């Protein structure tokens, strides 16, 4: 637990490494881009891959707080600009998918579909991981995924022995979701394994085309893996947990 300090006290210590100034950040970015573009054109275009890797290296390190070269306002501005960029990218990808896939009635472009679904999924996933009700979210994702696939099986085969066989794994997922109220880690482990099994069976070992594999990935393994991970993570705690801690501290 961190030491608590109250009121005006000793002179403030420098809390972390001096952040890079805004001017240095901008100049650094411009120099970095120009050098790599020139190298890419003059030497080898494979260097663009290096450019891509380097472009993501610093933000990723910052996200894990390994690199602390920005202060809180700079980080806030960075998050805000990323959020706007996310909305713009989603809007453009959405327009392309709706225009081509719905209005023109053709196969939507894979790149637009990838941007739309991956970015959307990551946003939803990160929101749930940071929420205080991870287990509830994990349970709901399992209910919806298992329930939707069970309905799909029933719609395909009706009430028949075949439905029972094909629907059994999804019944197991729903059963695990119910059990997750009492044993979240066990249920999460089962759902995660189910997700990995479907990932192997329907995506990795499958010979379907990109479109079909990608759709299956989004609709079955990914939600199950995500649900399993959420249930395996510790729950955020009750809303009053911090109050109880404060009372304990005061006592």
């Amino acid at each position, binding site marked *: 637990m961190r030491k608590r300090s109250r*009121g*005006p006290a000793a002179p*403030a210590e*420098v809390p972390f490494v001096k952040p890079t100034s*805004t001017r240095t950040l901008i100049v650094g970015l411009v120099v970095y881009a120009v050098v790599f573009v020139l190298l890419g054109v003059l030497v080898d275009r494979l260097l663009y891959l290096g450019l891509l890797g380097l472009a993501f290296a610093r933000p990723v390190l910052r996200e894990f707080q390994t690199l602390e070269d920005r*202060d809180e306002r700079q980080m*806030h501005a960075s998050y805000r600009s990323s959020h706007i960029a996310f909305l713009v990218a989603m809007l453009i990808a959405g327009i392309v998918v709706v225009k081509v896939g719905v209005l023109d009635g053709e196969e939507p472009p894979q790149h637009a579909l990838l941007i739309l679904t991956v970015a959307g999924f990551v946003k939803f996933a990160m929101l749930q991981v940071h929420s205080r009700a991870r287990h509830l979210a994990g349970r709901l994702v399992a209910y919806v995924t298992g329930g939707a696939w069970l309905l799909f099986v029933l719609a395909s085969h009706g009430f028949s022995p075949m439905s029972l066989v094909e629907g059994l794994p999804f019944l197991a997922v729903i059963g695990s979701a119910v059990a997750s109220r009492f044993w979240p880690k066990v249920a999460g482990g089962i759902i995660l394994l189910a997700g990995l099994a479907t990932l192997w069976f329907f995506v990795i070992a499958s010979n379907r085309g990109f479109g079909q594999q990608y759709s299956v990935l989004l609709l079955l393994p990914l939600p199950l893996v995500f649900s399993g991970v959420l249930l395996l993570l510790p729950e955020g705690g009750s809303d009053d947990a911090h109050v109880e801690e404060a009372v304990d501290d005061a006592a």
Partner: protein
Amino acid sequence: MRDRVGNQVRKLRFLHGEMTQEELAGRLGVARQTVIAIERGKYNPSVALAIRIARVFELPVEEVFFLEEAE
């Protein structure tokens, strides 16, 4: 109605031997642009940074930052 957070940072810098923005930024471990943004009310610091700013001026936080109620 949105409350705006006002502050006395600029005045307090002046009262503390005309401390420069650069010096304050150095003592806080933030960029000078951040001090400028705070002084101009363009950026509301986190509670931690507000406390650190108040400590530099040896004042309680509420004497450095205050709510300006919007009409």
